[in-house]
Structure formats: structure tokens, C-alpha cells
């Protein structure tokens, strides 16, 4: 034989390695057939095997086996991965790439392979402080709102002041989402609290989200409105936090667990029929709490109850048989972009389209590669701007060819990214959540 049988089995995880400590069956599940290559954006761009799902898993396994030293190059590769999970949809063998990816990034962080004072400071501030508390996030949101409304942003964007910013900030500035005038709870108190039905069909909690609440409070309000139109009582637990997916995907599993516990306490899942998420990126992580807290004796059971009750808004509406809006309504041409974590992470792909098609006057035009990542990928557009912008430009070209006036998209990160893409491409389209389109249609209904 010219090739040798490979070392089989992990070393005992004496050094606490999270990769060696993984259930080996998860690593072994990949039989390297390569079916994932066709759907991986980073492989397609580089045509380098290390930037493919099969390659990344082979690296993880080699490290777990002790055949390969864990080094900076591995860490960089893991952060080059979008985490879009297109590979998991393509994988006939059912490899749990999401778990492998989270563990591998956590191991990278545990070893500090990418550590630098600047990175540590930013992560300490953003991941471990800001996104651990909605109170802090709202303060930041208020400050950003002031920047945007006071004319400062206009000066930066149009009067050449951006050249005074350091290059890294100059690059990020266009990605800053437009901050809402009022956040969700304020809107709820003013407009919707009274609209909860007296005899509800279901009692549901809504996760407001971190950035979603700051930038797309109106989408949250529309979600509440749509749920109420369908006979649901909506509750917004005050103590809720960010879902923690940002933390889990960036190697901070302990932060993610802390947030999961706080959310479980805040929502008391036992008292609800469903916990609704309207952001594609939050849903799969929330559905994952049961797994995340499986080893926590105090929370394991409640986390399982929680996970079983989490529903994406589109999934929930289709399950309960939502009411189609009455026509006639004004015609509009809409194309649908699939959030990766809604599609690959939750297998919710048909339902948003079903909702869009139920709107009178709405023509749904499919774009090519609707299920291809837009480059947002959590904070990927900040950490890997070059690749993120390539993906965004590719997406916008497909949008342009549909001639649609609206891009429907159901994830906070995607919607911010697509807004940025719309400006880059100079396209006359608006970006809307499918639920916003549904809410608009309910509001515009002719009298029965």
C-alpha cells in the first residue's frame, strides 16, 4: 500500500483541548466525499481545500488526533469560515458542522491563538460587555441615534469628514445601521399593549434581539402586530437579553450560556405556548439552548422546554394557519433573500415564501443563488471585509437582475448588509422583513 491507515482516535483530552474532548463520532461523521465543496462560498472563492468544509473538518480531526499542531493558521481559517452552514444542508452524511465550528472557535479563543492587546480590548468591550447587556446596548443606540440625527453623520458621509476617520472606522461607517426613533418596548406600550386579544389562541413571547431592537424596532412592532392579527397574546419579558449567538459563534461559550440562563429566567418558557424569533440568526441558537445547557443541572430541563418552544415567526405562522390578507392591494415586485441561519440553520425556506405569496398584489421573483450568503454572517462583514464585500456584490447583481423593488429578508445582519449593498450598487430597492410586508398588507386591507 502506498498510503498508510490514519491514526484513529483522539488523544485523551489531558490538556483540556475542546477538540480532543469532542465526541469523536461527530468528527468521524465526515467521510470526506466532498459534496459540500459545491456550496461553500469561501472554497468557491479560493479553490483551496483548507477553505472548504471538508478541509476544515480534516484539520479539526488532525488536531484532535494529535497529527497536526494547532496554530495561528488554523485559527485564521476558522475565522475565514462564514459559518453560513450551507455545508450542513448539502451534507448527505449529516455532519454537525455547527457544533464542530463552535467548538473549534472556542478552542482558538481558549488558546489565545489570535490574541493581541487590541483584539482583546475590542472583544472585552463588545462581546463580553456591550452584548451582554441590553441596557448598555440601548445607551450605545441612543448615542448613535444622536450622531445620525444631529447632522454629524451627514458631515462624515458627504462633506469629506470620513477622511479624518482611521481607515478601519471609515470602512465600518457605511455598515452602521440606522437607529430607530423608539425601541420596541416603547412602541409596544404606546401602540400594541392594548391590542392583545382578550381570549388569545396562543400566548407567545417575543425575543427582541440586540441589534434588531436598536435598528429594526419597527420590524419587532410589525411582528407583534401580525401575531395579534392572528389571535396571539404577545408578551415582551423585560429582563430578556441578546440570544447569545454572537458569543457562541465567536468562541465565547460561557458568555453564551450566561445569556441563555438569563433569557430562560426572563421568559419562563413553562408559561408560554411559543417563544418567537424573527431574526434568522437568533433562532437556531435559541433552539440550541437545550444542547448548550445540557450539562447544567439547574437549567438543563428548562433549556429543553425552551428549545422545544422556540419558533421562527414564519414557521409559527404557517403552523397555526395564518390569515391571508384581503385584497385587492397595490402591486409590488419582491425578491426573497434567504438568511443562511433561517434556511440552513432552521430549514425554514418554504414558509417565508408561502407568506409572501399570500399577500395580494405581491409578485415574488426568485433571484439566482437566493440561498447563497450575503456576506453579513454575524460580524463577518467587520472581521473579513474583503470576502464579505465580494459576496455582497454578487448578491446585489442577482437582485438587480430580478428587477424587484423590494428585497425581502428575515435577519438583522443580512438586512443591514443588504442596505449597505443597495447603496454600493446604487439600486432603487428597499430592504424589508417578510413580516413587515405582511403587516403592511394587513394594515392596507380594504374593509371586509
Amino acid at each position, binding site marked *: 500500500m502506498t498510503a498508510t491507515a490514519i491514526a484513529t482516535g483522539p488523544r485523551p483530552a489531558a490538556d483540556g483541548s475542546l477538540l480532543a474532548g469532542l465526541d469523536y463520532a461527530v468528527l468521524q461523521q465526515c467521510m470526506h466525499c*466532498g459534496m459540500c*465543496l459545491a456550496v461553500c462560498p469561501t472554497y468557491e472563492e479560493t479553490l483551496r481545500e483548507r477553505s472548504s468544509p471538508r478541509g476544515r473538518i480534516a484539520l479539526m480531526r488532525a488536531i484532535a488526533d494529535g497529527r497536526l499542531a494547532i496554530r495561528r493558521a488554523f485559527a485564521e481559517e476558522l475565522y475565514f469560515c462564514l459559518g453560513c452552514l450551507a455545508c450542513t444542508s448539502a451534507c448527505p452524511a449529516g455532519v454537525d458542522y455547527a457544533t464542530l465550528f463552535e467548538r473549534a472557535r472556542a478552542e482558538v479563543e481558549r488558546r489565545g491563538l489570535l490574541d493581541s492587546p487590541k483584539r482583546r480590548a475590542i472583544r472585552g468591550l463588545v462581546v463580553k460587555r456591550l452584548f451582554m447587556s441590553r441596557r448598555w446596548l440601548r445607551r450605545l443606540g441612543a448615542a448613535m441615534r444622536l450622531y445620525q440625527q444631529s447632522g454629524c453623520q451627514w458631515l462624515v458621509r458627504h462633506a469629506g469628514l470620513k477622511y479624518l476617520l482611521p481607515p478601519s472606522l471609515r470602512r465600518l461607517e457605511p455598515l452602521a445601521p440606522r437607529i430607530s426613533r423608539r425601541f420596541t418596548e416603547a412602541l409596544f406600550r404606546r401602540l400594541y399593549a392594548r391590542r392583545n386579544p382578550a381570549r388569545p389562541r396562543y400566548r407567545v413571547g417575543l425575543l427582541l434581539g440586540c441589534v434588531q431592537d436598536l435598528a429594526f424596532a419597527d420590524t419587532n412592532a410589525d411582528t407583534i402586530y401580525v401575531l395579534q392579527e392572528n389571535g396571539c397574546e404577545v408578551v415582551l419579558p423585560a429582563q430578556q437579553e441578546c440570544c447569545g449567538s454572537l458569543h457562541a459563534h465567536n468562541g465565547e461559550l460561557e458568555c453564551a450560556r450566561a445569556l441563555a440562563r438569563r433569557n430562560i429566567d426572563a421568559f419562563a418558557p413553562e408559561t408560554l405556548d411559543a417563544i418567537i424569533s424573527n431574526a434568522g440568526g437568533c433562532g437556531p441558537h435559541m433552539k440550541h439552548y437545550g444542547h448548550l445547557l445540557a450539562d447544567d443541572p439547574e437549567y438543563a430541563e428548562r433549556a429543553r422546554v425552551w428549545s422545544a418552544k422556540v419558533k421562527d415567526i414564519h414557521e409559527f405562522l404557517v403552523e397555526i394557519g395564518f390569515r391571508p390578507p384581503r385584497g385587492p392591494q397595490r402591486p409590488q415586485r419582491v425578491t426573497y433573500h434567504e438568511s443562511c441561519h433561517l434556511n440552513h440553520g432552521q430549514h425554514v425556506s418554504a414558509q417565508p415564501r408561502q407568506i409572501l405569496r399570500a399577500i395580494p398584489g405581491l409578485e415574488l421573483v426568485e433571484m439566482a443563488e437566493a440561498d447563497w450568503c450575503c456576506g453579513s454572517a454575524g460580524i463577518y462583514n467587520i472581521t473579513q471585509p474583503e470576502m464579505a464585500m465580494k459576496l455582497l456584490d454578487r448578491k446585489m447583481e442577482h437582485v438587480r437582475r430580478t428587477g424587484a423593488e423590494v428585497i425581502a429578508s428575515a435577519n438583522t445582519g443580512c438586512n443591514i448588509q443588504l442596505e449597505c449593498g443597495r447603496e454600493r450598487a446604487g439600486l432603487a430597492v428597499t430592504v424589508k422583513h417578510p413580516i413587515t410586508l405582511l403587516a403592511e398588507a394587513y394594515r392596507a386591507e380594504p374593509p371586509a
Partner: protein
Amino acid sequence: MDSQTLIARLRSLLRDEQVLTEPEDLTVYAFDGTALLNQLPACVVLPESTEQVAAVMSLAHEQGVPVVPRGAGSGLAGGSVPVAGSLVLCLVRMNRILEVDARNLTLTAEAGALTQAIADAAAAAGLFYPPDPGSIKISTIGGNVANNSGGLRGLKYGVTRDYVMALEVVLADGQVLETGSKCVKDVAGFGLKDLFIGSEGALGVITRVTLKLIPPPAAKRTLLALFDRMTDAAETISQIIALKIIPCTLEFLDRATIGCVEDYAHIGLPRDCEAVVLMEADGHPAEVEEQATAMAKVAREQGAREVRTAASEEQATQLATARRTAFSALARLAPTVLLEDITVPRSELARMVAFIQEAGQRHRVRVGTFGHMGDGNLHPTFLTNERQPEELQRAEAALREVFARAIALGGTITGEHGVGVAKKPFLPQQLGPVGMEISRRLKASLDPRGILNPGKVLD
């Protein structure tokens, strides 16, 4: 030449970024789609033109460095697994489709072009490229030619060889050979082109391919027959062939495979029957009607519990697509899947299928069987775990018996995956002493220094 000097010389021929030497890169090119094989190469080269391939080959020849050509690495016999100290020549960046010639019904592409991209380009011109290996979405056309890949449509439309009109091949010493033409008839000289089809990278590096395209069929119908006994399904296929019916596709899945494919694809395959046969007729609408009716009748006569007709084109495509995932989907049942590729004369199908079942039981190994039954090509897949050496040995013992039986029934050890390293020990039994000797002489004359994919196919 030591590897430092080799790498320096390679970097003088190519951009730095095309020569990979980091352990993180070598690790991921150490395997292909075959179970159990893993060997680090010395370096990986990603050429972007025939000239670069020729330059690399000429250097390797001069220095006696082993070269392992590779496309997507989806091979199933270890053909593109590196050998120690080798240079992996990975052609995926040479992926341009150069021409669709609608006047001559040909398509020309670089070797790294994806098979799916070729099928799509042909379809966009209103033409049809029939070979459709299971890995069509990721495999390269160069890899298909080097392994003479088959697929689901092999029964009626043949295999890759039947569509290759011309090749550009870089020889072991870096010379570039152009062989074949766009002419339907061309008998000038020995059939050099044919030597390289199925040569598994051991005789030359295929860099460009000109393929024959055909008009697409006007109509298509897909049937699914459900059986309670495997041998009834096998007998149905033998009967259909004996009645001189040649449909486009006659695929077979056993119970274990059906369950796994359904777990992945969720298309409503029946989990409670022992075998399903996927039958597809295509061509003129009247012929399709006639074939479909006749096949359904045979299936019922052989004891099919039910014969379903795909309701739409979309459903038919779903069935074929799901079938292509069978091999990978079986990995849901066991960590190590040993996929085989025996082929027998179609009159012997029922006997071969029964023997595979029996060999699996005797050696206490789980077997899932699926395959292109219409062309006699079966994929018995032994489900085991590489971390349990004793079980692995039993699986290998069962495999040896299956190979021997296939040969005894007038069959072959590999229908479409190639010999690589996985089937190499069984080749002498298949070819006989004369066949082996001629193969060795051929290899020696085209690759006198033995640098091209050494240790593959032959020792």
C-alpha cells in the same frame, strides 16, 4: 533534490500562492473520497494553465519527483491520495469552459471544469451531456476522463469514454500531446486518446477535453417500483434487459440505503420495503410511453408491491438527486463506509445480490447495497468502524469474497470508480498475466521514470 530546493524551483515557475507547503494545506490534500487512506504530500501545486502543468512536469521528471494529479478529490478508490514525498498537482483552478460548438455539437473545457458546469453549459445551448456520476456537482471533467466515470445514465447513454472526442495531455516529461479531433470519424494512427481515458493519472495529466454533445430527449418518465424481496428487484432488472428494453436509468436501493437517503432528502421514499427500483425512460414521447408501460408490467409480474409514477419533472429530478447521495448518506449508519463497485453481466444480478447479502451475514458486517443495476454495476457498501480493527478485518474478508464471486460470474472488480490503490491487489486476478504484463509495458513506455501517480493501478 531535497524538498526545499524543489519548492524554491516551483516558486520560480509559479506564483508563491500556487505552491502550498504549510502543514494546514498538506493535511487537507492527504485524502480523497475513499475511506481509510491518508498520506501527506511534500507540497501541493495549483497550476492555472497547460504551460504551467508542463513546466511542473518537466521539473518533476528531471528530478524524479512523484506527481499525483488530482481534481476535486472525490475519487473512491484512492487514485488521488498522495504517495510519500509527492507533489500533488491539483487542477481545480483550470476550470474554464472554452467553447460550446453548436455547429459540431462539441464542448471544450479545461480539465478542472466541474461536470455540472459542463452539463449546464450544454443545456444552455439546447444540448445534452449525458454522463452524470454521483459526484457531478463537485467532480471535475479531467477527473471523470481519467477515471472513465459512469453514472446513472450509463445504461442507455454509455460512460465518459463514449463522449471524449479529443484530449490535451501533458506527458510525464512535460511534452504536450494533442490527440483526437472534432471529427466523428478519425482513425489516424493508434487510438492514443483512448489510452488516457481511465488511466487514473498514471500515464499523463489531462489538461483539456473536447466532448461530444447530443440533442436532449424530448420526453421523460420516472417510475419507482417497491419490492418486498431484493431478489425480485434484481430479477425485474434482468427481465427488462432480456425484453430488449434499454431505458435511460435502472437504479436500485436496498432497505438500509433507502432509510439513509430518506433521512437526508425527505422526499417520501418508502422505508418499509426491502428494495426500490428507480426506472427512467426518455426519448420520443411514444417510445417513453411504451417503455414505461412495459417496465411497470415486468415489475408487477416479478412481485412489486407497488409501482409509482413521478408526478412532475421536479419530483423526478428529486428522486435522481436523492439517489446520487446514497453513498454519503450511508455514513449516517456507521463511521466508516467501504464502498465497492463490482459489475456483473446483467443475467447474474439476482445471484450476485443474494451472494452479497449472504457474505455480509456470514462475516457479521452490515451491508447496504445500491447501484446502477441496469448496467450490472452494484455498489455494496460495508458499514464498519475504522477504530474497531477486528470488525474491519471481517468486512475486508467479506469484500474479498465478493470480488472473487464477481469475477467468477464473468464480472469486474470495478465498473466506474477505478483501481487506484483500493482495488490494486485484485487487478491481477482480473486482468491475468498477459494483461498485467502489457499494462506494465505501457506504463514504462509513457512514464519511464515512474513519476506519474506511482503505486496506483499497478505496482
